[in-house]
């Protein structure tokens, strides 16, 4: 337990020492929503709606 806190502190220290928290950060990797991401997202939403409708009836 104590070790976990010590490791967390060392991690925070190392991240700050490499400029974490400075405004204007850029990112090497580009995470963009693609068609299949939207597809999965809307599919999940449809299943949720269908489940709710099935449970509580159509009214």
């Amino acid at each position, binding site marked *: 337990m104590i070790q976990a806190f010590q490791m967390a502190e060392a991690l925070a220290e*190392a*991240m*700050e*020492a490499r400029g974490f928290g*400075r405004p204007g*950060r850029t990112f*090497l990797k580009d995470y963009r929503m693609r068609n299949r991401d939207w597809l999965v997202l809307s599919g999940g939403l449809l299943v949720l709606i269908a489940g709710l409708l099935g449970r509580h009836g159509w009214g």
Partner: protein
Amino acid sequence: METDRLGYAYRKEDANLALDGVDLRIAPGEYLLVCGASGSGKSTLCRTFNGLIPHFYGGRLHGDVRVAGKSTAEQSVAGLFERVGMVFQNPETQLFNSSVAREIAFGLESLGLPRADIQERIFATAQILNLSELLERNPQELSGGEQQLAAIAAVLAIGPQLLVLAEGSGTSWTLNGPEGSLWSRDGRPCGITRRFWDRS
């Protein structure tokens, strides 16, 4: 890099100081080796150089630390990191990304560099330090020496004016390879460090 009658206690109410009356002048191109018993304050001194003390650790700081004429007390750690690069004692806890390439990218992302520049610097750094084959490896799965090399690469890629190695002997072995040495006899940067300094 200068310190004036630097004193420090980790806790405000603590009477015994971790550092007491340290006066230092480090000129450009100079190397400083700090020796001392375990617990004598070497790491504490290192942490004052990049502002982790007092900004991250709090406590009670006396005197002044100046980097390029500006007091660290008036700057943030995130503002100082591009000038003062710090390699910590323990290589594992300072590597927190999923690959060595992303480890090197971290500081460059903090600088706000465009994607193409980050990519270019990663490859340039890997070439100079001869670690290209490690770029896609997970830092946690590297050997101790490889981890040290990755930690040094992540800091040198930023192009700092001052390099602080909190674990000097191990890291100097890592860098004393066929590619060049961190240490020089005439007191000027040579080998690996020279190539970084010339670039930045």
